[in-house]
């Protein structure tokens, strides 16, 4: 019988969201070694996922903002026909097609952004916010939203393909011709990304996305797969 101590340790930590990229890779290797049919692996994985999911219920629930349910449902109504009509889940899409999914996210993000400012959170407002879509050969939609005079930006995407194993997408800001790393990301299982990147966009004139090692290097090692002009 195989020893499951190592894979159990990794699965328990992964269920809690505690693995670093190197341990994620180690888990992938362990799972490959044990094989897809490893019943004990599946039992451990399911057991720890169930355990971690239950931990959420230690928290007090919070009131749901009025209107949130309708917003989710409105987005769901928009999303369902698209998926059903085209059969698309994560396949290639042309960048020339409307950025429907991203636009929906941007609208809702903007609403949340504004709401945050109204409630006194230390966040920028949407006034003067710009949304810039990336273009290129890669599948999916990706955009950044930011205020030219503010700090930080939101990165939003949908329909994105997973990067190759052991790789991540790295976003670069070109400042006076020099690429400066903004962030690294891996899309969710559904091919989406929505994250705030706390960087000074400053004098950046363009942005790009490359595929990089999970270590997220400080200089690009591959050619851009997506680019965006930031200058208005």
């Amino acid at each position, binding site marked *: 019988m195989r020893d499951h101590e190592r894979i*159990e*340790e990794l699965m*328990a*930590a992964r*269920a*809690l*969201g*505690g*693995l*670093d990229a190197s341990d994620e890779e180690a888990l992938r290797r362990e799972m490959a070694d044990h094989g897809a049919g490893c019943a004990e692996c599946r039992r451990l994985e*399911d*057991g720890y*996922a*169930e*355990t*971690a*999911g*239950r*931990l*959420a*219920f*230690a*928290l*007090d*629930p*919070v*009131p*749901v903002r009025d209107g*949130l*349910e309708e917003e*989710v*449902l409105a*987005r*769901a109504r928009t*999303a*369902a026909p698209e998926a059903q009509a085209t059969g698309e*889940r994560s396949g290639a899409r042309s960048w020339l097609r409307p950025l429907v999914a991203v636009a929906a*996210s941007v609208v*809702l993000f903007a609403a*949340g*952004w504004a*709401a*945050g400012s109204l*409630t006194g*959170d230390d*966040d920028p407002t949407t006034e003067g916010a710009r949304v810039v879509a990336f273009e290129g050969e890669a599948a999916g939609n990706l955009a950044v939203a930011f205020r030219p005079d503010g700090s930080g930006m939101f*990165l939003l995407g949908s329909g994105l393909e997973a990067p190759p194993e052991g790789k991540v997408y790295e976003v670069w800001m070109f400042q006076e011709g020099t690429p400066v790393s903004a*962030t690294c990301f*891996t899309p*969710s*299982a*559904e091919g*989406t*990304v*929505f*994250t*705030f*990147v*706390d*960087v000074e966009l400053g004098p950046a004139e363009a942005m790009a996305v490359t595929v990089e090692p999970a270590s997220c290097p400080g200089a690009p090692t591959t050619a851009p797969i997506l680019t965006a002009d930031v200058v208005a």
Partner: protein
Amino acid sequence: MPDAMLLDRRRDRRATGMAMATDLNEARDRDLMRRIAAGDEDAFRGLFRRYAPTAISLARRVARQPYLAEEIVQEAFLALWRNPEAYDPGRGSVRSWLMGMVHHRAVDAVRREESQRRRAEEAKASDVVVVEDPAEAVVEEVGAPQERETVRAALQGLPAEQRQVIELMYFGGLSQSRIAERLELPLGTVKSRTLLGMRRLRAALVGMER
């Protein structure tokens, strides 16, 4: 009847009642999922109302930004709506699966922020669990208060050093290496505390039903 036997019987009845409430809730959740798969919006609303209050609480705890938490929860529910077949009843409960999606997104969001370290400093493990009873505007489903009590008891039952690591990881969104840095512990110690703590939690939370 001796007091000890009376206490045992009361404890047994309470445990049976909790298990029944949990089973009932799970059966209702699975029915909602079946209806959602058929495109039933009312079922989607039903599941949202049941779990959005906890989902938002979780996303806020990890991401520490209310508007981002809302977006995370919206994305999780949209993923559920778009692909309800992703839920496999043979692998666990609907609520754990759903909270797993929320948690994964929240951790992903917080990891991408370069200000994560600053946020993590604000996330004190000690304020995670010990909170008075829920907000007045939240309607609890049958079984939920008992589950909350059970989960909190399971966490409180852990040795302090294991609880600390697990809370920093799950509620604070920190990786094991970050926790090791923060607590000035060897990484191996953090890993072993994680595993030992999770084994205990699994026995307390999942073992009671399976």
